[in-house]
């Protein structure tokens, strides 16, 4: 079993396995390496909401498909979608090969930046994964 999933420090994490990178009031969102592994390491389709969509924390902002199953993507923070990664819509495999970098999904202009306090830090997310692996 691969037990060591990359968990970059400096990012925030949702329990539903999205990561968030904060720069000013813009949150960039993707899914974690652990999430990719749970999707059998193969991502064959990504569907994202449109730019300008108003997201509420916890609401679905799209779908990722592995060969076998579809998974909902949940907004880790509330706000308006300012940009989506069109490259991954064309080439979804990028999410699996580069989940924290080229595989980013959406950027959200946060309406309530304090919501980041409710997200997990890297060490907390690592603990969450270790617990679910046991």
């Amino acid at each position: 079993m691969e037990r060591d999933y990359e968990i970059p420090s400096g990012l925030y994490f949702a329990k539903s396995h999205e990561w968030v990178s904060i720069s000013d009031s813009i949150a960039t969102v993707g899914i974690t390496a652990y999430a990719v592994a749970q999707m059998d390491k193969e991502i064959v389709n990504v569907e994202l909401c449109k730019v300008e969509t108003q997201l509420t924390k916890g609401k679905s902002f799209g779908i990722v498909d592995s060969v076998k199953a579809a998974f909902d993507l949940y907004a880790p923070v509330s706000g308006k979608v300012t940009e989506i990664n069109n490259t991954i819509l064309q080439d979804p495999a990028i999410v699996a090969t580069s989940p924290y970098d080229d595989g980013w999904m959406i950027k959200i202009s946060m309406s309530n930046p304090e919501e980041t306090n409710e997200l997990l830090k890297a060490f907390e997310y690592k603990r969450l994964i270790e617990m679910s692996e046991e």
Partner: protein
Amino acid sequence: MGCAGRKSKLSGGASLLKRTVLYNWHKSHGARMVEFAGWEMPLQYTTISEEHLGVREKAGLFDLSHMGRIRIRGKDRIPFMQYLFTNDLITMSEGDIMYGFLCNSNGGIIDDITVYLIEDYLMLVVNACNTETVLNWLRSNANNFEVEIEDVSISLLMLAIQGPRAQDIMYGLSRIDLSNIQYHQFMIYHLIRSKAVISRTGYTGENGFEIYIGGLFFQSLWEQLLDVGEKMGLVPVGLGARDTLRIEACLPLYGHELTEETTPLEAGLGKFVKFAKNDFIGKKALYYSTNPEFARRLICFEMMDKAIPRNGHPVMFGDMTIGTVTSGTFSPTFQKGIGMAYVDQIKSQPDTRISILINENPHPAIIRKRPLYKRRSI
């Protein structure tokens, strides 16, 4: 991220699950194990696509220990099965295998099974999820027949080798030329010093064999096949690719396309129901169920965009709901979404433009002739 719709759970790992004798082998070869029909089985060793294409292009090896194997002995074994089975065993000779159904009195499918006519007994191969149900069904209908029904799933294990190189690999192992085994026939040979039933059957749309051998020899056969087959491209294949392979070949799976609420006729498998033979359970209901006006039919379809259909998605014709997806997947061969669905018979013709409702959005699809995938030659 969360599982969308009604999909299978990601984590297995309960201690009550049954394990195959290859459990440790699977784990030590990187398999991701999942729960399936009460068994802890390998989902994949590498990726589903890689294993899938491995089978299509060269060959793959499948641990099928979870499937049920039932032996029926006794002088009434043929009339007994004639009474329970939709197909007609009278046309069989030794070495033949017949596919068909056990139906309830409403014509609903209890299981789809294969029957092997071997020396002085019949062997039934049944779905893992139905082994108990089938045993109970057989026993509860055996009162007027002199038969012995025995579950041999634990002692007689089963693997499949499938793909264009399967026969060459079998020859490499055994020096036996299997080209004289016709489709849906079997022979009994000695493999690695044990008697084995080798049948030309499968569930992938490829040419290949299913092999039944005693439990003591199972791991040895598995390892020797991989040893011999490695240079011909043989790879172990998990249940993930087994599912994508069978969906491309439009082979039905119990619990999806086949249930107690569906009949073989709706599934388009009427050729395995023989109305000309004597009474069998479900015959009357099936005979009178053929009114086409209200009928639904199993179809296969491919997506016209990048969306991927899944079990349970509604099928639309314009604004009208005409059915439900029973199996859907990304197809590693065609690199797009494909699936099977039950739809109203009047809208079931190939080339009909339909749409699949995924997350409340209709996505364009087209009904295709079955099967979607057909291998090029023997």
